[in-house]
């Protein structure tokens, strides 16, 4: 069943929306009229330009409120979500004992020129993040964190060497889509080496989500507010399923 909707301010379907943007114009009545016209060009009506601020000669910042009349059918929009159950640390540890007769190896890195390690550390290191322990502290998980600025080639080499079950890749810098390029290159590398099926490969970072990961050919993707238990829950179940299928 279709579920048509608009934004909500204080009454269902009132379409209320806030915008802010800069136009390369001076701050005067003409600029304000252009700001209004711009909002209208985005299908917003009843536009109120509530704030106009000079940023520089020929640049003005506008805050705008208005009514967006477009509707979307929420029912028709599909989001790819990680579908495995989320387990807590103890359950995951038991799960590993039950389904595998060996410890699992997770190898991770912040790759390419990316020097941000807090995200991958949050998932892998002993201490974890926001009160959730990292993989290192999980019984029967062997967590190897290669740190930052790791080349795709070096990561794969290490994964092979350590006979990793799971590869974890963190990408924080997303300017000019550098993360997309870098992540695509890693999948291509795996395929060129015929190793795509040897590992569960998971990506993460502030601008990463599961949809993007699937699009790029990864097994899963995790963004903000995801912790070691989310990642491990997915990984151990994916590994079990993989074993079944062999």
């Amino acid at each position: 069943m279709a579920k048509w909707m608009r934004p909500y301010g204080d009454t269902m379907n009132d379409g209320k929306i806030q915008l802010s943007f800069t136009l390369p114009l001076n701050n005067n009545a003409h600029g304000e009229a252009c700001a209004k016209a711009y909002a209208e060009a985005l299908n917003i009506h009843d536009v109120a330009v509530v704030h106009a601020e000079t940023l520089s000669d020929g640049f003005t910042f506008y805050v705008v409120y208005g009514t967006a009349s477009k509707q979307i059918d929420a029912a028709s929009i599909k989001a790819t979500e990680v579908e495995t159950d989320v387990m807590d640390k103890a359950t995951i540890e038991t799960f590993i004992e039950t389904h595998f007769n060996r410890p699992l190896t997770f190898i991770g890195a912040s790759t390419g020129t990316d020097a941000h390690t807090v995200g991958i550390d949050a998932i892998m290191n002993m201490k974890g993040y926001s009160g959730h322990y990292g993989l290192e502290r999980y019984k029967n998980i062997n967590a190897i964190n290669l740190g930052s600025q790791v080349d795709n080639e070096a990561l794969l080499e290490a994964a092979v060497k350590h006979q990793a079950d799971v590869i974890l890749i963190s990408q924080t810098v997303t300017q000019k889509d550098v993360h997309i390029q870098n992540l695509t290159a890693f999948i291509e590398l795996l395929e060129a080496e015929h190793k795509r099926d040897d590992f569960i490969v998971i990506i993460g970072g502030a601008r990463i989500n599961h949809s993007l990961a699937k699009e790029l050919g990864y097994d899963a993707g995790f963004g903000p507010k995801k912790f070691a238990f989310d990642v491990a829950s997915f990984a151990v179940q994916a590994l079990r399923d993989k074993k079944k299928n062999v």
Partner: protein
Amino acid sequence: MKLILDQNTIQACREAAEKIALDIQNIIDDHSTVAVERTILRMLGIDGINAFDIPYVNLVVEHIQTHADITKGVAHYFAKAIENTDFSPQQIAEKIASNAIDLSIYDNEKPAPIHLLTPYLENTERKILAQKATRDQWTTPKTLPDKYVIVATGNIYEDIEQAISAAKKGADIIAVIRTTGQSLLDYVPYGATTEGFGGTYATQENFRLMRKALDDVSKTENRYIKLVNYASGLCMPEIAAMGAIERLDMMLNDSLYGIIFRDINMKRTFVDQYFSRVISAFAHITINTGEDNYLTTSDAYDHAHTVVASQFINEQFAKNAAMKEELMGLGHAYEIDPNIENSFSYEIAQAQLSRQLFPNAPLKYMPPTKHMTGDIFKGTMQNTLFNIASVVTKQNIHLLGMLTEAIHTPFMSDRAQALNNANYMYKAFKDFADEIRIEEGGIIDQRAKSVLNDAKKLLDTIAEEGLFKTLEKGTFAGVSRSQTQGKGLDGVFKKHQTYHNPVIDRMLKALKEAT
């Protein structure tokens, strides 16, 4: 954190305010109003409207005005009618509405058997006391201010949706803003309403619906959420009674607001206010006074002392209505121009001064409104400073500022952001007040002292010339009002010598017995 204030000055302020309020009380005691009479009828259990949406209580009072002598009071007529007919007050009202009874037949000087009203009054009082008990049971004392947000969609059902969201985000108090102009209606609309304007009609049914919704969310959130409305305007005491019956927890209630901003006649509203405060005192409803509004019109820096003077006067008005200090939500506001240097220090001085002058009053602290603009980011900063000031000076009733104050009545998201802001500041500054001492002789210290001194001077002048004169001079908010003009004056009358208000008598007695 503490200001060192001169106790003699404070004492002098209180004494001047006492004299000011006493002068007015003499006038109050001699007068009643149509709203007061309608309130007595409501306390007798009369409810409902006729086919033209006119409340029975209005029809009855108009009937007495036209056909009999309202100066004797409705109690006179109803006591006699009951004695004579054995109808209930509601039945009598309905019969008056259908012209089946004419009360003019009771217009004689024979003393009325007022005691015959007792069972009906007791019935309503029992309801009120039950509501009070429910509230008492549910509420727990708090150290941090209570976060107070408004809903103002105009539609009670949307209001409820918004209120639930706010409660889930941490709001402690929900105020249903009233549709514009309701204060000028000389009757209370009836039933659930969906067509308000800048706010929602205050009706008994709307009160009930919202209280029910808040009770539900109080349960799921495990925290009692308080409800506020306006006992103000031409129906001040009626709404106080309705609120008492439906378990509102707070009421905006300040005749000075009505006089200044709504041009309501001063005599009318002083009389109405007295009764409304007695009812609220009885029902244990906290009042919110409106001093903050002065600063939306006059400059917050220059007129700070008028706020303090008015707080002292409101305190005395409340005392005269047998109200405990713990119910006196005296108002003030963070309305300073952000362009002023050291604006934060001045506001801290003011807020801390109010805090120390009225240590037992649950102060109501209003956010920046006048100097809010369409710059929602700057608005966020203004609200942040206000929230800090609130927690650091340990205010009680903390109205949250909306980043869109200058734009529209709050969206659901605006309110959530306001709550996020307050929650964050409460955490970040939790014990900050105990971390610092105010330097003597500094800006804060000096400012607080000078505001207090100016307030004393003003109170002395008012005590001398009388509050009526002060209001004529436009001392508060720069607005001048005359005692012989303003809305609702025709509904004021001098009490006949046989006049009785059994509600006030009973409630005052109960309140005195309780202490």
